[in-house]
């Protein structure tokens, strides 16, 4: 049995469905141990956390806080105080954008800089909270769908208080040179706050928040083999302490009177309501699985597949391909079949060969606008995919051409 077949055996859904799953950037498949963790949790430990002293609650609290520790270690955070659990990247980015914009860390003559390459979660949130609370938001406009770090850095000045950008765009798979941007930005303004959308990056790259001196990074559990409904905001302790809370409710409270409320310490100040303990238990299992499989191996395998797909698809002259089209692209390949609408392409691929890709604007309308298109097709890979599956995609694209001719 090849190593790749071994990987595939870990994912029960691949047994049951005759499907070629190339929609990994939307959500990944889940390995058996992650799926099984729900039964384990609900049939043994089921309880609210932090609030009761009975056995189930004590066990649940330990499970929940161990998961926090596991995630802190995974991204090399200094302390578990820096790990805030959310329901996904979108909530994590809403939390940090609204809290920063509402705080006094940004004054009225300072600004936020983001980019038109962002997923809406890292674009609309800054734009709208900026409007609501009267703070300035500027945008780097990409050039033909390429993130040019030098051009982005040129827009940073002493008045730029926050830069928010993706580490790997979900449209073209281009990997951002985070180190270069952070170094240059800190040279211009030592106290600039760095907010990174890591939704597509963290699942595929060794993420080290201390090495790169990242202030905030958001990511989703369900895009890295974990359960839906789980996400993380990492935030540097000394900044988190200065920020106002995001949501209001139980547990995040120190003291409440009809006059006012004081808030709990971090990370609890930012977490309220009964958390999805089962989900974060599952996310911890996903991290264990990735660690044991080897994040390096996962990275290498996905790199191989991406390059294989790029080289093959480049030979089809009836495709428009987007992005850098070189090693800077990871896990994602986006394209259009000339004269055929992406929805028809994806429907055809599904109906003819059971290939699951995504078509649409991928929650990145400004990006598509800069490319001069409305929507595109996206194939996104993970380590359980194979070269043969990519060959099938290639053949199916040829079929499409013939069919719609």
């Amino acid at each position, binding site marked *: 049995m090849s190593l790749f077949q071994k990987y595939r055996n870990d994912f029960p859904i691949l047994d049951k469905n005759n499907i070629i799953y190339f929609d990994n950037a939307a959500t990944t498949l889940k390995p058996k141990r992650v799926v099984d963790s729900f039964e384990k949790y609900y049939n043994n430990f089921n309880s609210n956390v932090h609030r009761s002293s009975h056995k189930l609650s004590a066990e649940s609290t330990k499970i929940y806080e161990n998961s926090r520790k596991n995630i802190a270690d995974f991204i090399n955070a200094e302390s578990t105080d820096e790990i805030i659990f959310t329901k996904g990247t979108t909530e994590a980015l809403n939390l940090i954008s609204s809290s920063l914009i509402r705080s006094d860390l940004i004054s009225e003559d300072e600004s936020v800089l983001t980019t038109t390459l962002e997923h809406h979660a890292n674009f609309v949130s800054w734009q709208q909270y900026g409007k609501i609370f009267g703070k300035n938001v500027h945008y780097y406009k990409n050039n033909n769908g390429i993130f040019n770090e030098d051009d982005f850095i040129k827009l940073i000045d002493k008045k730029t208080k926050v830069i928010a950008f993706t580490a790997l765009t979900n449209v073209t798979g281009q990997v951002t040179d985070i180190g270069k941007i952070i170094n240059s930005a800190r040279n211009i303004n030592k106290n600039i706050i760095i907010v990174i959308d890591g939704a597509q990056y963290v699942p595929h790259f060794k993420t080290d928040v201390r090495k790169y001196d990242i202030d905030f990074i958001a990511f989703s559990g369900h895009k890295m083999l974990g359960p839906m409904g789980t996400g993380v905001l990492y935030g540097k302790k000394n900044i988190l302490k200065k920020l106002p809370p995001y949501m209001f409710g139980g547990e995040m409270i120190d003291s409440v009177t009809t006059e006012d409320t004081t808030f709990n310490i971090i990370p609890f100040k930012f977490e309220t309501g009964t958390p999805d303990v089962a989900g974060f238990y599952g996310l911890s299992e996903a991290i264990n699985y990735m660690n044991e499989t080897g994040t390096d191996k996962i990275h290498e395998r996905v790199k191989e597949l991406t390059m294989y797909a790029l080289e093959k698809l480049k030979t089809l002259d009836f495709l428009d391909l987007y992005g850098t089209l070189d090693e800077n692209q990871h896990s994602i390949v986006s394209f259009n079949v000339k004269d055929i*609408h992406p*929805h*028809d392409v994806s*429907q*055809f691929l599904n*109906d003819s060969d059971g290939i699951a890709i995504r078509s649409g*604007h991928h929650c990145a309308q400004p990006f598509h606008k800069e490319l001069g298109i*409305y929507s595109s097709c996206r194939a996104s890979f993970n380590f359980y995919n194979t070269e043969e599956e990519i060959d099938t995609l290639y053949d199916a694209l040829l079929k499409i051409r013939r069919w719609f001719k």
Partner: protein
Amino acid sequence: MKLEDLYGDVIIDYAKNTKFKKHIEHNHEAHGKNTSCGDEIELEFNLNGDIIKDISYTGHGCIISQASTAMLCEALKGKNINSALNIINEVIKMSRGETFDKKTVDSLEMFEDISTLPMRVKCFSLSWHTAEEKLTEVKENDES
């Protein structure tokens, strides 16, 4: 739904046929948009009293939305508002997988299985919802 059903010759022909894809002299127009892909459709109506004397569309979209819109124009042209709304109503029911009147729906029945494809229902029904909204508005204005 099989490939041949969704992308059979008839549907592809409708999508490519430009008979109704043009601007016309009109006294009413309606705009529709599919949020999932940014596709847009513009309908133009030339109403004479409550009769749809002429109808056309412009815009961009997938085969399903283009074919569906061309067939909408064909189905509604010459009808009065009430029977147009009746047709629209039955077609929308069909697209939702509800029971519908086959006679009213006529050749659009070839889209019957679209209801099993939640993403494509939007493509199919965009122009129908757009037309429904506009014609209902016209009808209500006339009545008041």
